[in-house]
């Protein structure tokens, strides 16, 4: 499946690949991604993972920073609600991040570029299909170009 989609993108004739920044909690989603790898699942390489202790650790600033730095899509993934390694961290994320997404439009960012999901440590397959799906969507949305100027100073700094 994923393979098919990647080929489709390549058929467009461009070299452009979306850059997707993923913030994964250490205990569930990161372990899920690990399992996907261990299970020899393929998924697009467009995704770059930042490991955090918990989805509750995700500061909205991280998301903004990613977009500012030219990410085409940002994903936050944590444990399923109720299964948080830290009891309630993902509940904080669940309340905080959707609210934050509502504000993205105000910032000039298409809210569809911000994804939230729950992937457990046992869900390697879910992880790979999730990545394939959002990569496909990132292709569909095209490059994120609303913040081009912001990137330059940071690069130097």
């Amino acid at each position, binding site marked *: 499946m994923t393979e098919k989609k990647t080929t489709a993108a390549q058929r467009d004739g461009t070299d452009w690949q979306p*850059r997707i*920044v993923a913030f994964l909690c250490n*205990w*569930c989603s990161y*372990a899920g991604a*690990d*399992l996907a790898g*261990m299970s020899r699942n393929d998924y697009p390489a467009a995704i*770059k993972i*930042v490991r*955090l*202790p*918990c989805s*509750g*650790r*995700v*500061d909205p*600033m*991280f998301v903004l*920073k*990613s977009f500012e*730095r*030219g*990410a085409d899509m940002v994903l936050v993934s944590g*444990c399923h609600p*109720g*299964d*948080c*390694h*830290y*009891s*309630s*961290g993902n509940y*904080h994320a669940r309340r*905080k991040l959707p609210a934050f997404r509502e504000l993205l439009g105000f910032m000039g960012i298409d809210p569809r570029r911000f994804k939230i999901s729950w992937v*457990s*440590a*046992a*869900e390697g397959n879910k992880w790979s299909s999730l990545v394939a799906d959002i990569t496909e969507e990132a292709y569909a949305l095209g490059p994120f170009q609303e913040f081009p100027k912001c990137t330059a100073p*940071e*690069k130097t700094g």
Partner: protein
Amino acid sequence: MIKLHIDGQEAEAEEGQTILDAAKGLGIEIPTLCHHRAIPPVGACRVCVVEIRDGGRPGLVPACAYPAQEGLVVETASEAVRESRSMTIQLLLARCPEAEVLRKLAEQWDAPPLTLDAPLDHVEPPKGVPEGAGDRDKCILCGLCVRVCQDIIGPAATAFAGRGIERKVTTPYKLLSDVCIGCGACALVCPTGAIDPAEFCSHSIEKIPNEFNLGFDTRTPIHLPFPQAVPNKPILDRENCIHFRTGGCGACETICPAGAIDLEMEDEIVEEEVGAIIVATGYELLDPSVYEEYGYGRYPDVVTSLEFERLVSASGPTNGELTRPSNGEPPKSIVFLQCIGSREETGPGKPYCSKICCMYTAKHAILYKHKVHDGQAFVFFMDVRAGGKNYEEFVRRVSKEKVATYLRGRVSKIFPHDGKLVVQGADTLSGGQVEIAADMVVLAAAVVPSKGATELAQKLRISYDQHGFLSEAHPKLRPVETNTAGIFLAGACHSAKDIPDSVAQASAAASKALGLVVHDRLTREPTIGIVNELTCNGCFECENVCAYGAISPKDIKDRSGATVAVLANINEGLCQGCGACMVTCRSKSIEVQGYTDNQLFSEINAITR
């Protein structure tokens, strides 16, 4: 202390004790029938008579009811005693020739059968009870049942009716008793086994299915949970206990000689501080009644493999005799069905292989042949998966030695016909349909995690998969740990596993747990939060979000000892480093080590370069 002489020996007794008690202290055995240590004595049966020679009115008195008195001289086996005892036994035996306890006493006390007249029935059944139920002709009218019900339990469901030879144990007006609570204390104290409360209780006495034998037999509210339980002590099941249901009974408390039962005890929550937890919640079988075609739950002779295991067990409901649940006859033909709910991508079953079924089915076939030598066994299988040391050889032996006939294929239908179960299935190797008339069908149902395992996992904050099996931290490198430090897995709670694998994993988990707790100091993760006291303004929003209560106010004092500020402080031992506080902090005064904002921003910068 009262001093008296029994059979020439000096005996001691306390105030309120009887001659029987004093004799027991000397190890002198006096037979009794109507006496029970928990019930006030009446001296009715007169089997325990002893002779008072001196120190009291001379003559025969019942040892069970006669108080030990200072200076008594008692003979427990004088000629007069022997004659009287022998005659009592003979008379009771004339009434109840079937009572084993009397026969034994007769042998012991030289009481040849008297040529006396016919015995009479003594426990009169209430109206509506079929004649011949129970062992009424064993009643020796000792009255223990009546007394225990009246004096110990309380409802007084039974009573004596009639006088003299017409005396009978019955219910008031000989009607089925609606005050009987069905406690069975009467049957417990009856020396001859003559009484059965089920006969006179107006309401049915619920039989409690024995969980360990999967309901093939029944148990009492006080029971051993399973044979060779550790500790090997009975447990009391409050839900079924008459005392806890009605407030009555309490016979166990009175009767237990060790005084071990305390019905006042309440459940309590025990808090233990531990350094490691091993989760070993095991498995159960998928309920095969979801497959209508196999008729499990409708046909008693269709059983699961675990039920079969109990039926052939020496400690099982039939003491190891394999019988058909429907009629108690040995099954002359048996069909084992494998992969019931396993390896099923759609439908109510599970996609995984339950792993143990191939091997235990082969074992069951052998056990079946041990029990029923001339029986025929058939196994329907999808693939025989015998990966393991000597596994393949074992299965091969079963099929080669014709212990069982292996048929590769699935069964489409089971239906009863002429007292048998007709099993219709496909034999894909020969390419034809087969129909087997079986006495019994055993379903090797899929292994699923125990009920409640996921709830436990949520409490322990460990992860589990979509089937409810608990997840290890790493499938290859950390197979017994969970993602939560200090919690380990063992056995089938983790995945379908046979005994050798379970033992191996359990040993590993134990080693891991020991490895944790043998150290004097605990190694904690370095990634915990630290408060920047220079910028913290003491709003304590962080305190609200901390799931561990690790954040508390801290007084900052100047040199004079006066408090100048109250700031957040993080307990290093409690903090797990989740970072919730860090995100909440408006002044960015908390950083989780290893996951500081700077580090993460750098990371973001790096990957978006």
